[in-house]
């Protein structure tokens, strides 16, 4: 097991396109780190550079104390689970899992023990003689995991390993992966575009956008204190409400309301961020009121979403489903000021 460090890492392509810009990221030993972002944000490239499948254009990557820039993939002692699983189609499940050990000249008896051990953990005992094409998607995915486990590598790299599974299996596998991480006590680096996977699995989450790391923090911190508008908007569903405001002193004025901020943010124009669940129909002490005209109501049993306008701005509110609302109503919402966000219009950084 080992830690991983990206120090000022760049990835440029010959055409001038930059996939990763000045990435600095320290991943602790035995940590479950999730790299998350939309497609093309550089998260996969960052992972592939660590795996040794892409060259590092600038900067250095360390696994443990070793700088691995010039180390070929096969000597980095990492294991990777691919989105396509990349199982060797002509080999049985057993041989798929044993391949990495064979390449490292592990004695036969040891290979057998390790493969049997891993197949027991993953429930693949009965499929060892089958070929990948005779397995279901979920089983293939487990074989891909098994191939990584038997190697007992320094770092596990997982590149969107759940995206080819159906929804139910995905949830199941997500939970199993977390258990596996605990049992193996290994360093996991997990790439996904799915914020739910990121929030549920990561010890820490690294949010990336256009090759630039936006924020690294625990899921709770990412959700509660997003560093900028991008992170605030990317994590959370439905999305955080963004309302343009003009600020003078401690007063923030939007098109439909004005609020007293707890302190003067020192900017003139800003964007206020309120998560849909941070507004309530129940009056609370110290919660200022805003008025929303309701355009669409969605009741989902456990939740009720209101879509509408506050002044000239679109907002979404998430309320108790017992609260009766009809389209066209004007609803008084009370804003939880402790969970209010304010961003600078220019830099998009959080200022409050």
């Amino acid at each position: 097991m080992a830690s991983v460090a990206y120090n000022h890492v760049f990835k440029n392509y010959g055409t001038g396109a930059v996939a990763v810009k000045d990435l600095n990221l320290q991943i602790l030993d035995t940590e479950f780190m999730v790299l998350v972002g939309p497609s093309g944000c550089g998260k996969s490239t960052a992972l592939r550079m660590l795996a040794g499948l892409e060259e590092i254009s600038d900067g250095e990557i360390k696994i443990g104390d070793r700088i691995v820039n010039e180390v070929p993939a096969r000597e980095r002692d990492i294991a990777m689970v691919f989105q396509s699983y990349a199982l060797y189609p002509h080999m049985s499940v057993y041989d798929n899992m044993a391949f990495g050990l064979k390449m490292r000249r592990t004695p036969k008896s040891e290979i057998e023990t390790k493969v049997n051990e891993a197949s027991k953990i993953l429930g693949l005992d009965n499929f060892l003689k089958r070929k990948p094409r005779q397995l279901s998607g979920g089983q293939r995915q487990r074989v891909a995991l098994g191939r990584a486990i038997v190697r007992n590598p320094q770092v596990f790299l997982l590149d969107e390993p759940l995206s080819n599974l159906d929804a139910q299996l995905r949830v199941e596998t997500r939970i199993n992966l977390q258990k596996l991480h605990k049992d193996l006590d290994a360093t996991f680096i997990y790439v996904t575009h799915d914020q739910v996977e990121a929030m549920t699995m990561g010890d820490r989450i690294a949010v990336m956008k256009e090759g630039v790391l936006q924020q690294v923090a625990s899921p709770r911190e990412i959700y509660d204190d997003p560093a900028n508008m991008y992170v605030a908007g990317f994590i959370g569903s439905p999305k955080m409400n963004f309302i343009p405001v003009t600020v003078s002193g401690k007063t923030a004025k939007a098109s439909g309301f004005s609020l007293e901020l707890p302190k003067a943010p020192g900017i003139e124009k800003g964007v206020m961020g309120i998560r849909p669940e941070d507004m309530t129909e129940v009056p609370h002490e110290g919660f200022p009121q805003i008025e929303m005209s309701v355009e669409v109501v969605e009741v989902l049993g456990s939740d009720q979403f209101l879509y509408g306008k506050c002044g000239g701005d679109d907002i979404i509110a998430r309320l108790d489903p017992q609260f009766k609302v009809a389209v066209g109503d004007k609803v008084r919402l009370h804003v939880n000021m402790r969970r209010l966000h304010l961003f600078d219009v220019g830099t998009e950084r959080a200022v409050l």
Partner: protein
Amino acid sequence: MSVATAGSIPQTRRRPVKPGKVVGRVLFYLLVVLILAYILFPFYWAARTSFMPDSDIYLTPVQYWPKNFTVQHYINAFSETTFLRAILNSALVGVAATVLSVLFGASASYALARFNFLGRNVALYLILAMSMFPGISILGALYTVLQKVHLYNTLYALIIVYLTFSLPLMVWIMQSFFRGMPRDLEEAAYVDGASQFQTFWRIMMPLAAPGLATAGILTLMGCWQEFLFALSFELSSSHWTVPLAIANTGANQASAFQIPWGDQMAETLVVMLPLIAVVLLLQRRIISGLTAGAVKG
């Protein structure tokens, strides 16, 4: 469900067949029969001739089915040592050239398909250009070269020459095959600790088997039936390949002024059999290989 099917039965039963469709069908099968006849007629004619006594072959009216059935031509063929020796020679040369062509062709085309190196495209187009040369245009040059390296009138000469002409085709078929394979598999192998050569040999080669089989069959067939180079580079009858041996059948006999059609046709059919066997045998492999699929999620 059962109601729906019950309701649809009379519909399908009574649907009238359109006359236009019938005509189309008939024309289609007529064409199939025509093409089959065109392809199979020479085989039929060779077979007919091989089972007739020599005296019947030239008879008019033409016998479409041998009246005096005989297997004498086959007995002649198998008692001719030159012919038997030629089968061995052809097998040796064909298998050697094919195996070498598969080995060199696969590794060259893998490199051309996957690695970026200086002059890759130049190499690729040179190889393609090679396959456009008609053999006869470099016959003289090849003769001189083989003479210089003392390979003239040896079987090595044919192996080398056949390799030269089969490699371009092999490389072109295989490099497009390798290009179509998912990169993930190789990357998984690298991460698993395999070297580039191990990845090629243990992962890519088995997966390329269908393509290799196709290209290999083409190469083998080409070698088996090649006449021009064999005629030009093999002097002694102990080095003859099958086409040479067939062409020379009866040349030394008293009946040198008469072409021994019966013997030749019998020999032709005999040498076709292994080829047909190989194709049928490997064709199964090819089809099963292509439908297997590599990394479907």
